[in-house]
């Protein structure tokens, strides 16, 4: 088995290989080449630091590495079902961890779907430790069924205003929701809201596509413990009633979860975020 930088392969080859590694996955999430390209761009995946395991010209598995300054992110790890339990997954992970060290990363994050025991065991063996659970929530299209929210001051934010709000967050969102992800996605907007009675304030990000409302994540303004989530969701879905909604990687301890549920969100699956501290760069 040879380990080869992923940059030597075409996006089409990587897409086909990735999909083949996931055919029996707990939650199969196949990608098109277009979607994988977008994923690489939005999440700062470095194909030079990502790796493919191959033998005799056949791709057996792959793993990708995103790099943002001192932070690394291992993602899309997968091995063909017939090639598992022979060390390929560990070799792929060790490769990207080494690349993260060489790139000066001080920590590598990853997410594993809760219930994927073999992957969790591998990551633990490599030194990763649990950080928190993240939920993937879905909401079908439709106007809010819940009752009208209290009076509030609403401001719809353009992408640059949204990024300013995102950069001011005093908590660390998951990689997919970090400011860099929102900046790379380009067309992300937000709604900012101040509840007139309580003065609670916060904002909710979103990105529209023809059928979906994506990157939906609620954040309180600095100094507030929780945002007026009920009102934010109410106004967001009043404006976009025809779109199916994805709220990805919402922390399981988010104070806003009850409001998501009141607005019809259901849990699709949950991930465990893990981290591997690498120490300061040499």
């Amino acid at each position, binding site marked *: 088995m040879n380990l080869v930088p992923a940059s030597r392969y075409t996006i089409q080859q990587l897409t086909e290989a990735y*999909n083949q590694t996931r055919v029996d996955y707990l939650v199969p999430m196949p990608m098109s080449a277009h979607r994988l390209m977008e994923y690489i761009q939005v999440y700062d995946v470095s194909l030079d630091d990502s790796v493919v395991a191959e033998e005799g010209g056949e791709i057996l598995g792959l793993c990708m590495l995103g790099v943002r300054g001192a932070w690394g992110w291992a993602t899309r790890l997968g091995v063909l079902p017939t090639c598992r339990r022979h060390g390929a997954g560990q070799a792929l992970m060790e490769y990207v961890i080494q690349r993260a060290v060489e790139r000066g990363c001080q920590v590598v994050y990853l997410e594993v779907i809760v*219930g994927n025991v073999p992957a969790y065991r591998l990551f633990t063996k490599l030194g990763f430790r649990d950080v928190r659970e993240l939920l993937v929530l879905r909401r079908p299209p439709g106007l809010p069924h819940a009752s009208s929210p209290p009076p509030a001051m609403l401001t719809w934010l353009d992408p640059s205003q949204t990024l300013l709000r995102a950069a001011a967050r005093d908590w660390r969102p998951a990689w997919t929701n970090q400011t860099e992800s929102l900046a790379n996605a380009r067309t992300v907007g937000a709604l900012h809201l101040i509840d007139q009675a309580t003065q609670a304030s916060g904002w909710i990000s979103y990105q529209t596509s023809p059928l979906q409302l994506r990157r939906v994540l609620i954040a309180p303004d600095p100094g507030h413990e929780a945002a007026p989530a009920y009102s934010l969701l109410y106004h967001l879905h009043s404006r976009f009633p025809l779109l199916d909604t994805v709220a990805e990687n919402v922390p399981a301890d988010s104070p806003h979860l009850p409001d998501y549920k009141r607005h019809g969100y259901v849990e699709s699956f949950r991930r465990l975020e893990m981290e591997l501290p690498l120490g300061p760069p040499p």
Partner: protein
Amino acid sequence: MPSDEETGRTYTILLIEDNPNNARLMCRVLERHNFTVLHAEDGETGLQMAFAHRPDLILLDLGLPDVDGQSVAGMLKQPDSLPDTPLVVVTAWPAETARAMVEAYGCEGYIPKPIDTREFPLQVAGYLNRPKP
């Protein structure tokens, strides 16, 4: 129950499934039981075929590239779309999750993967023969 006994009409099933092996198997099993099967390998094509052909029932995989199964279901169940066409999820997702999605998106039910090739046509026929609410 592949056809309407009174009219002799054959039922048309639209299968939206990206995995070619799964799709081949499901098509073969259904066609052997005299269903007419249309196949779309992604969500966008599935939506186009649903509106163009107005099938009697739609079988939908949730894990689709680009436009995923939930978004397809959300679109099909809009009041001005095909809300009365039975929409049945075919998925390997855990039963609890599959049930939650079926309920949230207004689907008629789900069939777990891997399919049981003997049961599968009966399950499909069962959804076709359900009285409209």
